């Protein structure tokens, strides 16, 4: 744990800004969904922002990142434009995917964000292959692959990690362990000690870290990324965090005791970073301003997104494939 007095305030001020922006983006999206503006399901990462910020904050712009259905935070942290993302959630023109994907399929190749995924664990082989592609081309970029604790019980987790080890690929695997697989406690469905132990059994160095302590995530990610960039092959970080909201924005999550959630709220990664920054001498007003600006930014973005046009329906027929007529035999 960094000493608060030696803290790089500028850097972690920026991290706090990012975390607030992520939180504000998702709160704006949840509010917009209540108002009928977000069209499909969204999976908020409220309470998990330290993982996104701590990991992606250590990636270079040219590095790649693949995410999950719960990917807004990771995507923002990788540098995607929140307005385009919000438009995507609203199914509007100018969305990151032109309204074709929605929350679970946001991708922004321009910033190295190679896709959320609607299939749990499916991003693991793809990320591994992306790293394989980079390595074949002699690139120095690395790939971060973020997935949930539930994903470690799917076969592609094993296959992808083994592959990354066998080919010594530059992948940072990040298990963002929020304790739940949808409405089920993951520990009840998981044999053994979890992601890190499994990675180690495959020969991949792994570390467990308090995923609500962004300083710890940052330090661990930085070290892991340095090792990966030095050519040492894959590393796994197991970040323990907690999902404050339900599985989706409309899940009341009554399957867990209120006290548990309350206790976890007190462990909020944003609060914790604010406390550290306050201790390091950052003043309250500055901290408050970071929060307020983030909220303003995202609320304004939600309004702007809501005022955006719908995509051209003809776009349903583009980007399918070069060969053949996608309209064939339609209706």
């Amino acid at each position: 744990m960094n000493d608060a007095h030696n803290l790089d305030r500028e850097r972690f001020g920026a991290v706090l800004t990012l975390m607030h922006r992520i939180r504000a983006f998702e709160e704006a999206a949840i509010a917009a969904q209540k108002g009928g503006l977000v069209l499909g399901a969204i999976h908020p990462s409220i309470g998990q922002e330290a993982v996104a910020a701590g990991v992606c904050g250590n990636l270079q712009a040219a590095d790649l990142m693949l995410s999950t259905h719960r990917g807004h935070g990771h995507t923002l942290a990788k540098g995607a434009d929140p307005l385009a993302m919000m438009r995507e959630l609203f199914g509007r023109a100018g969305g990151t995917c032109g309204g074709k994907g929605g929350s679970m399929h946001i991708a922004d190749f321009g910033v190295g964000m190679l896709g959320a995924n609607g299939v749990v664990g499916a991003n693991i082989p793809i990320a591994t292959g992306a790293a394989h592609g980079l390595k074949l081309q002699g690139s120095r970029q690395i790939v971060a692959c973020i997935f949930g604790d539930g994903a470690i019980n799917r076969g592609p987790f094993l296959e992808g990690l083994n592959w990354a080890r066998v080919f010594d690929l530059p992948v940072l695997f990040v298990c963002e362990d929020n304790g739940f697989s949808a409405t089920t406690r993951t520990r009840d469905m998981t044999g053994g000690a979890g992601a890190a132990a499994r990675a180690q059994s495959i020969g991949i160095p792994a570390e467990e870290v308090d995923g609500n302590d962004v300083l710890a995530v940052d330090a661990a990610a930085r070290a892991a990324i340095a090792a990966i960039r030095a050519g040492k092959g894959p590393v796994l970080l197991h970040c323990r965090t907690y999902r404050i909201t339900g599985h989706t924005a409309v899940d009341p999550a009554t399957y867990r005791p209120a006290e548990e959630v309350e206790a976890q709220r007190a462990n909020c990664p944003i609060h914790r970073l604010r406390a550290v920054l306050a201790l390091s001498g950052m003043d309250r007003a500055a901290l408050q301003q970071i929060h307020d600006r983030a909220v303003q930014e995202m609320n304004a973005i939600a309004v702007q997104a809501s005022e955006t046009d719908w995509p051209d329906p003809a776009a349903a027929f583009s980007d399918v494939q070069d060969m053949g007529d996608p309209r064939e035999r339609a209706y």
Partner: protein
Amino acid sequence: MATETYLNAGRRAVIEEMQRDDAVWALGEDLGRGGVFGQYKGLQEMFGVDRIADTPISEACIMGAAVGAAMTGTRPIVEMRFSDFALCAVDELVNQAAKARFMFGGQMRVPMVVREPIGMWRSSAAQHSQSLEAWYTHIPGLVVVAPATPADNLGLLKSAIRNDDPVVYLEHKNLWALEGEVPEAEHLVPLGKADIARAGDAVTIVTWSGMRHGCLRAAQTLAGQGIESEVIDLRTLWPWDRDTVFASVRRTGRLLVVQEAVSVSGFGAEIAASVAEALHHDLKAPVRRLGAPRIPIAYAPALEDRARVGDQAIIDAVLGLVAPCPAD
């Protein structure tokens, strides 16, 4: 009769069959909290954690374990959540469940029901909206069922659970909330029998699953114009009810197949081809299919709608079929 939702009718089927036969059990993710759509609500409280089993996110193992459990004398109901996720378990279904009885020379059977909710459900996008029933009809060893009404979801699911071979059971996500009359007494719908949802003599419309309702709406509108369509809901896709379809087409001389799935190589092709082969000389107009274009399903509604067969398209197709043929 009582009014029941499609979802609750399926839930009742599971309850009744689990009460009737101790060998029946269900497995899948989140079932203890009712499953992702609430189809299993309260069942774990009724039947315990062994018979309503929560599983890891391991579709391949859910399916594969069901095969083994079926071989050893139980009758698993597999919940795949979205049919899209069943694509993580295709070896287990197609190479294992479907073929085991045959490959092993009939030494045993694999009685299992694989529930795979299909279909478009507003803005669920390309990985949560597919209808791949055609695939399963192509695989020897599988029975394929796609109920469209609450009563059928009760009666067909019960029959599926009693079937001794693997059944792919495709509920439509957009129908969960649909209400309908459901018999209060034991209600079994035989597999392989179509339902003539509406009688008519101008044209035969063959459909299944969610599209039954669009076809009925279109038929209603057409009736206002004096065109009486016969709407046949196949209910079971394999084996499909050739007798009912053929008898109808012999009478009407016109066939329209309406499906939500991609038209290219959809199950509608099998129906249309079968009718064209067998009843060419009875046809007063060419067979006709409606289905989705060959595009992934988009998130934004205006784009998603381009993948939908709307009521108007059905009406237009029927009008085209009953119009005097220019070539004749």
